[in-house]
C-alpha cells in the first residue's frame, strides 16, 4: 500500500522549546529585574545588549586613545613640557613611538620617559633657534628698528 502523506496522529511538534529559550536567557542571567527570567522581556534586553557591545567595540579605540593622551600629558607636564610640544618634537626627531607605548613607558619606565622629554625639549629649542635666525636686524630702510637714546 503506498502512503503519500503522513497519518493524522504524526504531527510536527516543537520539542526543544526549552533549549531555544535558554539560548537567549543565558546571555541575560546577570541582568537586573524580570528581564533575567522572563523570555519576552529578555529577548529585547539581550538584543539591545548585543547592539551596544558591537558599537562599543568601535568606541573603545577612541576611549583608549584619549586615556593614553591624558596620561602622556600628565607625565610630560611633570617634566615641564606640554603635550603638543612633546608629541610634535618627538615626531620631528624621527621617534615613531605610538601613544599606547608612550603611556606604558610613562607609567613603568620613568627614567626612559624623562630622557624622551629631554630629547623633545632639546629639539624644540633647536627649532626655535632655527626659526629666529641670527638675531640681527633685517635689511631695508622701512623695516629697520629705530632706537631712541
Amino acid at each position, binding site marked *: 500500500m503506498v502512503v503519500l502523506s503522513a497519518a493524522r496522529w504524526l504531527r510536527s511538534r516543537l520539542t526543544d522549546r526549552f533549549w531555544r529559550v535558554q539560548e537567549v536567557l543565558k546571555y541575560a542571567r546577570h541582568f537586573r529585574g524580570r528581564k533575567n527570567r522572563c523570555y519576552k522581556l529578555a529577548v529585547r534586553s539581550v*538584543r*539591545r545588549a*548585543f*547592539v551596544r*557591545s*558591537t558599537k562599543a*567595540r568601535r568606541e573603545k579605540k577612541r576611549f583608549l586613545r584619549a586615556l593614553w593622551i591624558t596620561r602622556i600629558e600628565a607625565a610630560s607636564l611633570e617634566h615641564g613640557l606640554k603635550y603638543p610640544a612633546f608629541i610634535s618634537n618627538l615626531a620631528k*626627531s*624621527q*621617534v*615613531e*613611538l*605610538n601613544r*599606547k*607605548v608612550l603611556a*606604558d*613607558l610613562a607609567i*613603568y*619606565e620613568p*627614567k*626612559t620617559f624623562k*630622557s*624622551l622629554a629631554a*630629547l623633545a625639549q632639546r629639539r624644540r*629649542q*633647536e627649532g*626655535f*633657534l632655527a626659526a*629666529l635666525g641670527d638675531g640681527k636686524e633685517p635689511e631695508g630702510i622701512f623695516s629697520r628698528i629705530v632706537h*631712541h*637714546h
Partner: protein
Amino acid sequence: VPKTSLTSPPWPEVPKLPDPVEEAKYHAEVVQKVNGMISAGQYGRLFAVVHFASKQWKVTSEDLIMMDNVLEAECGDRIRLEKVLLVGADDFTLIGRPLLGKELVRVEATVIEKTESWPKINMRFRKRHNYQRKKIIMNPQTVLRINTIEIYPCLS
C-alpha cells in the same frame, strides 16, 4: 633706557645651545661609556619596544604576546622580531630613529599556540523596520612568548 613693552620680542628668550665641538666630545664619551657597560654586561633586565603585526608592544623576556591574526609559522618555531624601536635597561636606553640596527639588538620569540578567539557577537538592529542581523565572529589568534632580548656593543 627704561624697558617698555616693545624693548624685547614677545616670545620667551631661548637659552643658547652648548658649543657643538664640546657637545660632540661629550657625546662620544657617553657612547663609549655605554658601549663599555654593554660589553661588560652591567645591565639587569632589558625591555624593548617592538613593532609587530602593525602594533607596537613593550616587551621583556618571558613575556606573552597575543595577536589577532594568523602567523605562518608552526607551533614551537623560534622567530626573530626585527623592527625594534627602543631598548632600555636600568641605566641607559637606546632610542631608535625610528628603528635600531639589526646588529645592535636581537629579540627572539617562540610561537606557543594558535587558537581562535572567543565567539564575539555582531548584531545590527533597526527599530520598527523588522531588521536584525546576528553574526558570530571568531578571529584566529596567535600567542608568542618572548624568550630573550640581547644587545651587542656596536654603538658608534
